[in-house]
């Protein structure tokens, strides 16, 4: 259809789900003191950056990828006119957009972890590793490299690790539902693509996730214009990245579930939990299997996500209208088949951090745990922010008034609730601050060519 995909020029972590094979992921935010030292250090890293080219033979022990905040691009000497060509929300940075994202109360940037949201995080190095040994080797090399290069320091680091049962901390299998991309993952189109009127699915245009390629809008444009992208060598083969550290109060969630389940006649705690999320804990979609988890459910199967809402569940009796996954990816639930949702998809690459809470504990143990949420999208405002603002932090589009996502919303003194459709309906409340934002950044992931241009100081 369009031009062929230049995998060698695209960084690997965008299109490849490294979390599946590498169970450790470390995020190191580097602060760059001056452009010369920054560029010299980046030049040294270039040949270590993992591309999207499929591996022939055994996979490497570790992968490494590079992204920049806007402050970071400035710090490494990107030309001013190029800096101005990035999107408004990226230039402002996540902490300045906190009110729009609902990061208030305990999630307010003033409470964020040190180094995040203050403009001092410049370059994000993401390392995936198969085991602790290889991870530490790369981290040591990275730290040594920073020392040797000079005038560089670490603003923040976060170490995430896949849990034994591949679940996030509330106990749910996560991360296996991804957009099906034309030319890349068309085999996942059933369930991962755009639902069509005839019951079929089609994959999404690559340009929804990688800049410099045709997106869904280019399809209907007689001039086949490409979406807006930064100027120069950074305009093709890269994408925007959202990184958010989300603390999870597992004990509070368990207590809330336990207390609410006393009043819930239609099922037990597991059923109620499934109603809140939209999937059973092992990933079985509620709309496909409303009364029981399917032990045989295989999250990795090609048709694992092949389900829709409009034909069997318009009233939300199977999967509640406000369930988390229904909000985050409504598919055809907003009416007009997929036309109101298909431009708001994201590639997600999150990883849990922190030790698991004892399986029968209902009181917090004081340890930090949660999810590092990572997504890739061609437009932060149209994709990530729109979902956050219109679908998670509000309920109007689902005819739920101001009800926010039960898992993510809440803030510090919430009177929020969730309505579980049924006969009779059940109201889950109170909505607690189960999730608190500990920090985040908007980043740009350049292509390999773009990265080389930055390292050479030739960006405009």
């Amino acid at each position, binding site marked *: 259809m369009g031009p062929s995909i230049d995998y060698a020029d695209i960084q690997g972590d965008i299109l490849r789900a490294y979390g599946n094979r590498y169970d450790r992921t470390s995020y190191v935010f580097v602060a760059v003191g001056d452009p010369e030292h920054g560029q010299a250090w980046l030049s040294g890293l270039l040949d270590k950056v993992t591309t999207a080219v499929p591996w022939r033979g055994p996979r490497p022990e570790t992968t490494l990828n590079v992204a920049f905040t806007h402050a970071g691009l400035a710090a490494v000497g990107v030309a001013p006119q190029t800096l101005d060509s990035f999107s408004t929300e990226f230039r402002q940075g996540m902490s300045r957009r906190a009110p729009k994202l609902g990061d208030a109360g305990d999630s307010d940037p003033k409470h964020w972890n040190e180094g995040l949201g203050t403009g001092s995080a410049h370059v994000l190095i993401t390392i995936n590793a198969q085991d602790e040994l290889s991870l530490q080797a790369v981290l040591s090399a990275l730290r040594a490299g920073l020392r040797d290069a000079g005038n560089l320091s670490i603003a923040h680091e976060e170490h995430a690790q896949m849990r034994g049962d591949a679940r996030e901390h509330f106990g749910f299998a996560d991360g296996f539902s991804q957009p099906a991309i034309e030319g890349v993952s068309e085999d996942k189109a059933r369930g991962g693509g755009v639902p069509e009127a005839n019951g079929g699915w089609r994959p999404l245009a690559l340009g929804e996730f990688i800049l410099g390629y045709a997106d869904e809008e280019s399809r209907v444009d007689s001039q086949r214009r490409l979406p807006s992208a930064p100027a120069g060598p950074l305009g093709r083969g890269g994408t925007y990245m959202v990184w958010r550290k989300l603390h999870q109060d597992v004990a509070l969630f368990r207590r809330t579930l336990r207390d609410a389940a*006393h*009043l819930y006649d239609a099922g037990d705690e597991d059923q109620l939990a499934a109603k809140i999320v939209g999937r059973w804990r092992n990933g079985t979609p509620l709309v496909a299997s409303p009364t029981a988890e399917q032990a045989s459910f295989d999250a990795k199967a090609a048709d694992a996500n092949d389900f829709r809402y409009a034909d069997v569940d318009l009233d939300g009796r199977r999967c509640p209208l406000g369930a988390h996954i229904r909000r985050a990816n409504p598919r055809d639930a907003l009416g007009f088949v997929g036309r109101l949702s298909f431009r708001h998809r994201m590639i997600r690459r999150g990883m849990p951090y922190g030790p698991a809470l004892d399986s029968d504990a209902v009181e917090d143990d004081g340890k930090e745990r949660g999810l590092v949420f990572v997504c890739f999208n061609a437009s932060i405002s149209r994709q990530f922010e729109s979902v956050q603002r219109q679908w998670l932090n509000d309920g109007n589009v689902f005819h739920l008034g101001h009800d926010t996502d039960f898992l993510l919303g809440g803030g510090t003194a919430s009177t929020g*609730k969730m309505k579980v459709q049924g006969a009779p309906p*059940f*109201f889950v*409340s109170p909505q607690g601050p189960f999730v608190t934002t500990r920090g985040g950044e908007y980043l740009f992931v350049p292509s390999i060519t773009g990265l080389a241009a930055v390292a050479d100081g030739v960006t405009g």
Partner: protein
Amino acid sequence: MRTSCATVSRDFAIPAVLAKLPRTHFGRWVIVPSFVKDPTEPKENDLGCSYLLFSSTFDGPLDSYVDELCSQLAPEAERIWGCCIGCPESAGRPGLKAYLLHNQIETGLFFSAYPTTSLETVKESLHTREQTIAFATRTQGMEPAALHKAFLEELRS
């Protein structure tokens, strides 16, 4: 649901007064400095001066609405439209009313999600709904006797 255009000679801040007109659902004042000329337009279309647009979505007949506007918003209305050319300075309410009606633009098409509902009904219904939801959430699991009693007391219209 009427629009009126009147000329205005300078910018000014409009106070929040429409709450005093109890038939008003939505209202806006917009200063239109000039019409935007599209590059494909063949001729100049310069307005020559700024215009003040007032648009309101309200219940009931226009005539009495304008009457209310002129009386309930008396000092503010005179101040707002007093900046406009041709607005009578001392003719009082009838003068202001005539002025506004003279400057009215007819609506071609109006769409409302709830066209025949009065503001009072909207507000009362919203309040009832809010109360009912709070009641339903709070009384889950309540024994029938207590539930019955609470309903009769709390959800009286």
